[in-house]
């Protein structure tokens, strides 16, 4: 059996100010999974991602991550405004110390993957919100990440743009085969995107339930309107409501 991509056992994170962000978290993520995290704000979703990326460390229990090749996308695109799109996308590959030729060919390929090849010389402020988010995805994708972390990446976008990016990100995942951990506030997005939905609760931040998503690789708008999708949504919705009361 191959090693898990992420293995948290009995993990707790307690900040110096006394806040317990995570408590007794057991979570194993296999390579190639796409796990979505749902939960009220403050339940430790971002902390869990930071733990997986090594930015935060567990104060109790054991958190193991099998790779150092990590992609990270935030709600804001956080591109560097003084760099062109191409230079923004090149940034992490350069910081990784890849040779310039390799960086250039990766940037070209990655821009194509996210559909920004015609905007490589633009500056971020010249792009729409959706395009900036694509550039932000590309910036991490260029590292060829094994583990890709998403912290409410499409939360600030309009619904149409968000659904397109959902489909494009799913296609990218199927093609590039990274392991995904995706935080969202939307139940529908969590089910549509995930192979598994992990529902968290607050005070203290913990995992309440997990659901294997019963849809295969082929998903489209019909999936969203299917009876099975609706049933799972309402079940998760009930659990979330229970977690918040």
């Amino acid at each position: 059996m191959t090693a898990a991509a992420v293995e948290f056992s009995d993990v707790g994170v307690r900040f110096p100010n006394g806040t317990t962000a995570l408590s007794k978290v057991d979570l194993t993520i296999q390579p190639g999974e796409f796990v979505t995290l749902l939960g009220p704000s403050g339940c430790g979703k971002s902390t869990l991602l930071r733990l997986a990326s090594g930015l935060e460390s567990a104060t109790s229990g054991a958190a193991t991550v099998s790779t150092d090749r990590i992609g990270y996308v935030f709600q804001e695109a956080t591109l560097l405004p003084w760099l062109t799109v191409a230079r923004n996308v090149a940034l992490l590959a350069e910081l990784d110390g890849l040779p310039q030729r390799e960086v250039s060919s990766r940037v070209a390929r990655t821009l194509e993957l996210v559909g920004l090849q015609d905007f490589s010389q633009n500056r971020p402020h010249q792009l729409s919100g959706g395009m900036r988010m694509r550039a932000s995805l590309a910036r991490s994708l260029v590292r060829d990440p094994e583990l890709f972390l998403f912290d409410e990446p499409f939360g600030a976008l309009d619904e149409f743009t968000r659904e397109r990016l959902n489909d494009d990100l799913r296609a990218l995942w199927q093609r590039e085969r990274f392991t995904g951990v995706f935080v969202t506030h939307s139940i529908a997005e969590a089910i549509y995107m995930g192979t598994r939905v992990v529902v968290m609760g607050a005070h203290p931040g913990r995992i309440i339930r997990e659901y294997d998503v019963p849809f295969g690789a082929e998903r489209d708008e019909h999936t969203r309107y299917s009876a099975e999708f609706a049933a799972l949504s309402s079940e998760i919705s009930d659990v979330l409501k229970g977690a918040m009361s």
Partner: protein
Amino acid sequence: MSRMTARVLLPVAFAAGVVAIWYLISGLLLSPSRRFILPMPHEIVVVAFLDGNNLMDLLRPLAVSAGVALIGLLIAAVIGIVTATLMSQARWVETTLYPYAVALQSVPILAIVPLIAFALGYGFGSRILVVVLIALFPIITNTLFGLQSVSPQMRDLFKITHSSRWTTLRRLEFPAALPAIFTGLRISAGMAVVGAIVADFFFRRGQSGIGLAIDTYRNLLDGEMLYGAIILASALGLVVFWLFGLLSKLAVGAWHQPDRR
């Protein structure tokens, strides 16, 4: 009247009004023997600016003061940017030095003139030190603000790639701070000109600056030259302010629009 014309016409009309009142006071209220207090505008132009020798007498000290301001500003920029960078790198440096940076701003230069004279004498060096003291604070605070304005998430991305502090500074914090650094330089540049002129009054050895020229013409009751010197000194301040605005636009204008988000 369109808004653009209004924006040009109204200030011009205002200036015309001021000049008219000026003529009234100078020509009607002041007796010729007291006219040096407020000479007629055209006489200032004729005497101070159209007479080649007189103009040179004003431009030479103006260039000296401009040089003092520029050298002092450069020294302040180097010290200020380095200090702010150290502050941004180590909290304890900021905690240790920041109170003194603030204190520096409230030191009355007048009060420490004897001290400066004691250390550096009454010449060029003292004038430059005054400029440095006056120009330092805005550069430190603006640079520090700029360095600290980087989003925590960008810092996280640099951490994930195990980038060194130096790399993070060079590729993230410093470029992000550039617009703020230019804002600081622009403020300081204006203050440096003021500092250089003020310092002329106290530190009179060596080539005289425009401040000393102003003082001299005041003593001689030479109204035309006095006003000519004051106008040129003000123009120097304006030009310097405008120049640093232009520099800032050239350096960061392609990506930083102060009036946009």
